[in-house]
């Protein structure tokens, strides 16, 4: 195998964008060592963002050849954190540790002005070793600007040139930054990456299946987490940023209704009568399940407002707002929530809420929600008018279940009631559809176990 072929095959593991507002992050701890074999979906690192610490998965099978970024160092999104040799490739440590400038999305390189066109030119490479390397990496040295002494082409120049280089339109760059898309993963055929490629990727990301999960040895998780107060301050800042943006940019409208839950809660009590604590269904899950199904019947509220137009979600990925006792909140996502039955929704919700509160969410479990549900179901609050989480176009807010006087068949009764408020982005969806959503939500609540 020619020297350098392994570096061609190696795969970068980059700092992911864990949310639309994340610019940089740092490794809290590596959960793998160099030489470790990893599989797609394995958690390999804990990454600290300004919101939270998250377990981050790898998206390729292979061997970790190099951990580039040490724990504690803050780096921009897109920075290469580690290199992997895909299965089948023989890791060549000499080449793998060569100094390759990390690819960084947050600080994009200047727009390449030209497309490489192979022409018959004299090679400026004198060293047979480097010529060999250039051949192996399919680098056309005739068009390379040498950075060595006297403009000579160096090993670095060749390896750098071998990095996949593509033209990316300024709009695509901006959209990628806004939506946290890694442009190196975009498919654009042979053309330059344009805005549509990014938008397609965002909607595809939202449709991505639940990724396989690897169990991480328990001791890998006992490493000290950063100071809680610092984390709380940073989360506050992040919430402030996102909510200010949402409030300033999104023309919110609200539609609200009161829902009689008598029948719903009776069905639920019957369902729970012979269930143990571990399998009991809570009203919170019934609400989530009904909200997801209502989003299917009114798809106009389910999706993203991207670059001036609505992109419908290809599935319902329901964000669940979890308030943390230490302050702040997180919104983990139940993916394909409308395709799951009530029991699965309950299981996933329990798991997500618990791990949100114990600081054990995975990176793939936040972000990409197509609609969000917030419930203030436990306190004294009757109703909540929430703020939309961009780029989503709707959020459903539920107050606490409480008894209220209720007119029924010309008589006054007392019923358990919940106040539901749908906030919609008026740029994307009108109030009529918001009320259709609430009507549908109400209907699904009447038959919670159907």
């Amino acid at each position, binding site marked *: 195998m020619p020297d350098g072929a392994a570096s061609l095959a190696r795969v970068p593991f980059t700092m992911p964008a864990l949310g639309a507002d994340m610019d940089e992050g740092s490794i809290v701890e590596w959960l793998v060592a160099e030489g470790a074999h990893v599989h797609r979906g394995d958690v390999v690192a804990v990454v600290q963002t300004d919101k939270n610490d998250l377990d981050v998965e790898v998206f390729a099978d292979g061997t970790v050849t190099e951990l580039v970024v040490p724990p504690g160092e803050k780096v921009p999104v897109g920075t290469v954190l580690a290199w992997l040799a895909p299965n089948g490739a023989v890791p060549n440590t000499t080449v793998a540790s060569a100094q390759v400038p990390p690819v960084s999305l947050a600080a994009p390189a200047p727009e390449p002005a030209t497309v490489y066109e192979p022409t018959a030119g004299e090679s400026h490479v004198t060293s047979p070793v480097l010529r060999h390397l250039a051949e192996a990496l399919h680098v056309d040295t005739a068009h390379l600007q040498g950075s060595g002494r006297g403009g000579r082409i160096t090993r670095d120049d060749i390896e750098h040139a071998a990095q996949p280089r593509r033209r990316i339109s300024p709009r695509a760059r901006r959209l990628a930054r806004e939506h946290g898309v890694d442009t190196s993963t975009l498919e654009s055929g042979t053309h330059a990456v344009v805005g549509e490629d990014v938008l397609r990727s965002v909607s595809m990301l939202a449709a991505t299946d639940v990724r396989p999960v690897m169990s991480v040895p328990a001791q890998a998780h006992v490493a000290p987490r950063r100071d*809680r107060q610092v984390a709380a301050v940073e989360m506050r800042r992040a919430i402030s940023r996102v909510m200010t943006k949402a409030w300033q940019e999104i023309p919110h409208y609200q539609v609200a209704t009161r829902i009689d839950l008598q029948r719903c809660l009776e069905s639920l009590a019957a369902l*729970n009568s012979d269930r*143990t*604590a*571990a399998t*009991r269904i*809570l*009203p*919170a899950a019934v609400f989530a399940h009904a909200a997801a199904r209502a989003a299917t019947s009114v798809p106009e509220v389910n999706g993203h407002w991207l670059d001036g137009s609505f992109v419908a979600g290809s599935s319902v990925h329901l964000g669940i707002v979890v308030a943390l*006792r*230490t302050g702040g909140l997180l919104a983990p996502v139940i993916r394909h929530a409308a395709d799951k039955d009530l029991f699965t929704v309950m299981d996933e*919700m*329990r798991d997500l*809420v*618990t791990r949100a*509160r*114990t600081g054990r969410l995975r990176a793939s479990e936040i972000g990409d929600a197509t609609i969000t549900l917030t419930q203030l*179901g*436990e306190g004294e609050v009757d109703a909540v008018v929430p703020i939309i989480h961009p780029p989503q176009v709707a959020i459903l807010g539920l107050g606490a279940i409480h008894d209220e006087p209720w007119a029924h068949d010309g008589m006054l009764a007392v019923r358990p009631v919940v106040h539901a408020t749908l906030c919609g982005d008026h740029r994307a969806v009108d109030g009529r559809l918001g009320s259709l959503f609430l009507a549908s939500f109400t209907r699904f609540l009447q038959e919670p176990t159907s």
Partner: protein
Amino acid sequence: MKSFDPYEVVNAALADIAPDVDPDETGADLHDDLGLDSMDMLNLAAAISERAGIEIPECDYPALRTIAQLAAYLGEHAPSCR
């Protein structure tokens, strides 16, 4: 059968599902004072049931609102905590 301190069982379960809650607050209301919601309470009941090897029937939940009440309940009902 090995015997467990009921407080240890409750605190271990609590540490799993709500590590931010102070286990010394044995008399505080888990819901009203310590901020556990229904999902947390359900998780806590499930975790305690599993650790103590007993099932806590739903009708007993209303009387189990503090760490002390949970520990006393285990001492009374769980063979492994006697």
